[in-house]
Structures are given as C-alpha cells and as structure tokens.
C-alpha cells in the first residue's frame, strides 16, 4: 500500500480539520483550564464528534460505528494534536473500542453501540509505576464467590475521573512481572471501594489516580480470557501508541509551522531572524526529522489495519520517532520564539507541555527503542 493518504482519507482529514479547528481550538483548552472545568473536556463537542462518526470510528458498522481503520483514527488524532484538544477520543474511541472489539463477549456489542453514539466513556487503568511498565501488575483480582475481589492502585489513567466504565488490568495468577496471569476487567467507577483522584496535569488534559479496595467484580466483567489477557493488553496498547504517535506528529507540525512563520516576521539586528543561517539549518533539520516521523507513523497505522500481529516493530518505531521528533520540535519552537515562547499568552508553550505528557503516555522514545533492541535480539 502506498505511503500516502487515499483520496477518501484526505477528505476525512479535511472534515476532521474543520470540526476540530472550529469547535475545539487551543482557545477551547485554555477555557477549560482557566475555568478549572470539573470534567476537563466538553460533552457537547464529544457529541459532535459522535455525530460525525468519530466516536465509533474503528467500531464495525454492525455495532453502530463507522467501520474505518487506524489510518483514519490517526488522521483524527493528528488534528487533535494540532489543536491540543482535550477529548475522550483516545481513551474511548481508540483504547476502549479496541478492547471491546478484540475481546468480544456478550456485552461487547451493546457497549460498542453506546460508545459509537457518544453515550459511553471508557478509561484504561493500566500503569502502576510513574514510568510505563505494562508487564508490571501488582493489582490483584482474587476469586470470590461468582466473581473477583479487586485491590490495587493505578496511575496516569487518562479520563479516569469522567469514564462510565474502567478497563482494569489485574493479576489473577502468578507474580508481579509474569506474562501469564493477567486479566482485564470492566469495573464500574461508582462501585464500592473505588476511589478516584483527578490529577491536574501540566498540560491541562485529563488524568487520574485510582485505587481499588476490595472491590467486588462480577465474573461477566471479564474482558477476553481469564489469566491470558497479556496479548489483548498489547493489542490495545499498540493501537493507543500508534494513535498517540499521530497526535504527537500533528502537534509537532503545528508547532513547527508556527515557528517557521515566526522566523518570517520577527526582526532583530534589522533583519528577519529567519535570515540567520544558524536558525535556518536548525529549522531545516527539524523539517527532515518530521518527514521521517510522518512516514513511520503512517506505516504503523497501515500495518495495524493490514496485519495487527505484524505491526509491533512498526508501532515501536513510530512511537519512538514521534516522541523524539516532537521533543525536538517543541524545544526548538520555544527557543526560537525567544522570550515570547516563555509566556503563557503565546500558545507555543502549551505544545511543549502536551508533548511532554504524550511522550510519557504508553512508553517514551527509550522504552520503544528498547523494544526494537529486544525484537532484534540484542
């Protein structure tokens, strides 16, 4: 498949760009942040996403979704990245939908339909350490009666405080770092023993710490297979990683474009600063880094659509590249904006904040370079 968007995908990008830039531009993020909005996102905008078919973008049409693929989801994520939009798109439309789709089961069809209509928000409660270590799961679900008793603590749960259902990774057998013995559970956040602390983050996007204390969970809450949830976790994570890579790419490109525009308008020493070769070469180098990341991200999304089981290395490369090139893009953006870049009034610093968070989300560049080394056997 050619590494360019198809005509349909380009049209989708144009409509996503229109919607996001119009309804959820950076001013939208500022308003939510400055008003200390309880939910941290707009339900009204999310309804509009749903009516455009974005909430159920990767949900099969039989379940009320749009039946599209990861490339299309990535296209939407890129626009979210450009506008720094706080949206349940990642937690619900990507992570939640992937979990329900892949796990199947009696409840999946109904939940996917509600999700696609914009009536169900999900959150993935996975990380327990401050650095992404998906195989380390201390949270325990012990058998009790017809179901389980869940105890443990999760951190960096995106949209954790607004979700209608939590997807929790828990250990049902084995030691803290064993591959086997992991089970995914759908947990009601209002259940007795669940406490949720919303954590206001540096980028003003949603996250929460969640603790489970002897929470009673029914056996029909199991997503996928008991004790054998690790591959499902990887599948959910890879979809999430590729889509966060798209978000980072969109964010980088917007920061880069704003910076190049600034180089063409800011004057010092009687010259436009874009005339200085010291800045020209750095901007051109950054252009190259972003072009390479663009190819890697699109390929990973295409691989997820074509053959998800073979996509692992591509996703690792895409997330590693998206992290490192976004890191460079936002650092250069702030530096080249000079003192202006340090002010809250100018948007550029907001890109740096979001890039920092999105890098940590589901593994940073080092995490994914390490995966490549493991895949290649060294």
């Amino acid at each position, binding site marked *: 498949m*050619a*590494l*360019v968007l198809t005509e349909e995908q380009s049209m989708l990008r144009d409509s996503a760009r229109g919607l996001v830039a119009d309804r959820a531009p950076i001013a939208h993020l500022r308003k939510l942040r400055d008003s200390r909005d309880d939910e941290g996102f707009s339900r009204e905008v999310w309804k509009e996403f749903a009516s455009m078919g974005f909430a159920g973008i990767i949900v099969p049409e039989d379940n009320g979704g749009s039946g599209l693929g990861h490339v299309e989801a990535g296209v939407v994520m890129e626009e979210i990245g450009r506008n720094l939009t706080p949206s349940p798109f990642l937690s619900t439309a990507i992570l939640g939908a992937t979990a329900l789709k892949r796990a199947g089961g009696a409840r999946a069809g109904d939940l996917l339909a509600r999700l696609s209509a914009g009536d169900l928000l999900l959150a993935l409660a996975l990380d327990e350490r401050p650095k992404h270590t998906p195989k380390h799961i201390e949270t325990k679900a012990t058998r009790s009666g017809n179901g389980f008793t869940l105890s443990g603590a999760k951190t960096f749960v995106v949209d954790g405080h607004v979700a209608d259902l939590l997807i929790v990774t828990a250990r049902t057998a084995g030691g803290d770092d064993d591959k086997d013995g992991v089970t995914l559970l759908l947990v009601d956040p209002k259940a007795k023993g669940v406490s949720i602390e919303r954590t206001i983050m540096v980028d003003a996007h949603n996250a929460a710490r969640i603790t489970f204390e002897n929470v009673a969970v029914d056996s029909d809450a199991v997503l996928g297979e008991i004790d054998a949830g690790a591959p499902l976790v990887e599948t959910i994570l890879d979809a999430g990683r590729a889509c966060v890579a798209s978000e980072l790419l969109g964010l980088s490109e917007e920061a880069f474009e704003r910076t*190049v525009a600034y*180089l*063409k308008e800011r004057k010092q020493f009687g*010259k*436009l600063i*874009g*005339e200085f*070769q010291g800045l*020209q*070469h750095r*901007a*051109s*180098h950054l*252009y*190259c880094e972003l*072009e*390479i*990341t*663009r*190819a*890697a991200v*699109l*390929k990973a999304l295409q691989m997820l659509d074509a053959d998800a089981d073979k996509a692992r*290395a591509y996703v*690792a*490369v*895409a997330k*590693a*590249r998206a992290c490192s090139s976004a890191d460079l893009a936002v650092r250069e953006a702030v530096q080249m904006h000079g003192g202006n870049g340090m002010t809250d009034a100018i948007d550029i610093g907001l890109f740096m904040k979001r890039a920092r968070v999105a890098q940590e989300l589901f593994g940073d*560049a*080092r995490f*994914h*370079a*390490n995966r*490549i*080394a*493991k895949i*290649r*056997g*060294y």
Partner: protein
Amino acid sequence: MTDLETFRRETRAWLEANCPAEMRTPPDDEEDRCWGGRNWKFKNEAQKQWLERMAARGWTVPDWPKEFGGGGLSKDETKILREEMRAMKCRSPLDSFGIWMLGPALLKYGNEAQKKEHLPKIARGEIRWCQGYSEPGAGSDLASLQTKAEDKGDHYLVNGQKIWTSYANYADWIFCLVRTDPKAKKHEGISFLLFDMASSGVETRPILLISGKSPFCETFFTDVKVPKENLVYTENKGWDVAKYLLTHERDMIGGMGLGGGRPLGQIAAQSVGVENGSLADPLLRADIAEFDVDAFAFALAMERAGDLMKSKQAHPAYSSFLKYYGTELNKRRHELVMSSLGSDGLEWESERSQEGDAPRAWLRTKANSIEGGTSEVQLNIISKRILELPGA
C-alpha cells in the same frame, strides 16, 4: 488475481530461476560491485551471467522505455521488482553513474540521436560513465566552474581541470559541465557536454584518500576536441540539466543511508558479549537501538518519497532531505560499526580484517555528506525552497 499480483508472482519465479547464488549476498564494498564498461573484468562467471540475464530483459533499468534498452515497466511494476529483489537479497546487476545520473538527464533533455546512441549502452553496461562537475575552485559553489569550451565551428575545444571525478581512470565517457559564455552570469554560461575519455588531451590522476583508496581522480583537459553533436540540450542552458541530474545523484547517495550490511546488534554481541539476552554494554546498546529506530524510519521515508513522486505530491527539493538525512545516517552507522568492533576494527592490514574493510569503509563514509552537495548545502536548499525562509 490482479495484473500486479501476477507480475509479482512471475517476477519472483524468474528471479529465483535466474539470479545466481553468488549474487544473493551483499557486495563487500564498492569494488565488489559490477560497474561494466569497455575494460570491465567480471569478478566471476555469476556476475557476468547476472548482468547479461537482467540486461536482456531490460531490468538493469526497469523503468526506462524498451526502445532504449529498458524494461518498459510502470512505476508500480518497478517497485515490485525492487521489493522482490530485496526480499531475495539479489545484488544490483549493474551499478553505474550512467543509470543513476546521466540516463534520467538524457531521457529528459537529450535529443533522439543522443538517447539512441547512449542509453542502450548504459543499460547493457557497455560504457562506463564518469561525472565532470566539481573543480578545485568550484565545490559547494559549483556554478563558479571555470573549465571552458570554445566554439570552433564543428567542435568545442575544452580546456580546464575537474576534481573528485569518481572512477575517471576507469571510465569510458564523461558527462561534463563547461563554461561556454564567460561573460554571462555564472549560472547562465554553462553547457553540458558528453565526450570520450580516450580523446586526445584527457588525463586522469587518482587521488589517495584517508581510506587508503582512490575512488576519485583529478581530471585534466588540454585542447580536447568535442564534436558539436555531443552538446546536450541548449548551449548555455547546461545548469538546468546539471540541477536535474544532481537530484538523481542525491537520491543515489541518500539511498546509502539504507545501509545493509551486518546488523549492528550482531557485530556488538561478538565484541562486548551478551548478558541476560542484552548486549553487555548498555550504553552502546542504547546508541545502536536509537540508530536502528532512525534507520528503520528512514527506509520508510524513502518508500514514502517514491510514493509521493509517483502521485506527483513530492516537493521538487525533496531529494535534498533524503540526501542530507541518508548520508548523516550512514556516517552514524559506520561510527557505531567502529565502536562495536573495538580494536578489531582498527586493523588496517591483516587477514582477519580483510585488509581493513571496516576502517576503510568508515573513512569512506565521511565523503557522503560532502559529495553531491554538502549537508550544509542541502540544508540551505531546504531553507530556501521548501521552508521559503527569507534571504536563504
């Protein structure tokens, strides 16, 4: 089954039946490749067979028109052929500046007689070409070149000196930039000439490089007579041809970033050892992993560049990006090869090191970001033409 799927299946079967086993290993270095030419001595029978079989199908230049010795393949078919060759690890049957640089320029700017005369010989590997561009005083500032060609009625009289002429001492013909109008602005008095290196008045002197090898020459022209019909395109419009050809040269050099060769992780495992499944030197491992991520992604960027060109969405200056990044990546790779080999990589003359293969290759890569326009020149081009920064 679509036509392309059929083509892929047939291509795979043909390659399987026709590519000799010896041609399914990567070449050791530039000298282990097949360059062709009047005086070419094949390294072995397999190299000869492979060239002849591929040339007979026009597959040394698969996307050139059949009438000029090409395969007449579409861009999709060409891509499939390359993919299948890569999958089977088939070597390129013929490496040549004629294929990479002159051919595309002649297809665009040459007249019918020139195309008929030169292209089939390039495709069959009968004539080996060299490139007369740089001069001692015209490197990055190529357009300031001084080699002059005076109009003598039925011929030009060429006098001057070129430098960094790749393999001029082995080449049969040269494509050469000369000044035909010394009074015009520097870009507007240049012409593009073709001539036989056996012409009277041509002399080459190999330059010994830090790698201990001499892939480049100084080339001197003293009263060399070049027939008028060997002018490509229009007199004093040679810069247009030169620029077009340079984009192809940049693609070629940038492609070196794809590397090939032994995986770095394997090389390092031998010298630093492995503990619990990971390289015992964690910082070297981290550097190699970071390189592998970038090289993997760069290969995808090359693939995307091809797709962008096919769908006419590529920026005309896109090759500067590939050239810049590919060459810097190749230099990084060879630094890591040297770090991974440790003292084994320092042996310059020994059996074990195959007469210093690794250090010589490492030193050779330092030229990658100089030849074909330095990295700094590529960044200038991106600044000016893609980012449209002021005063660039």
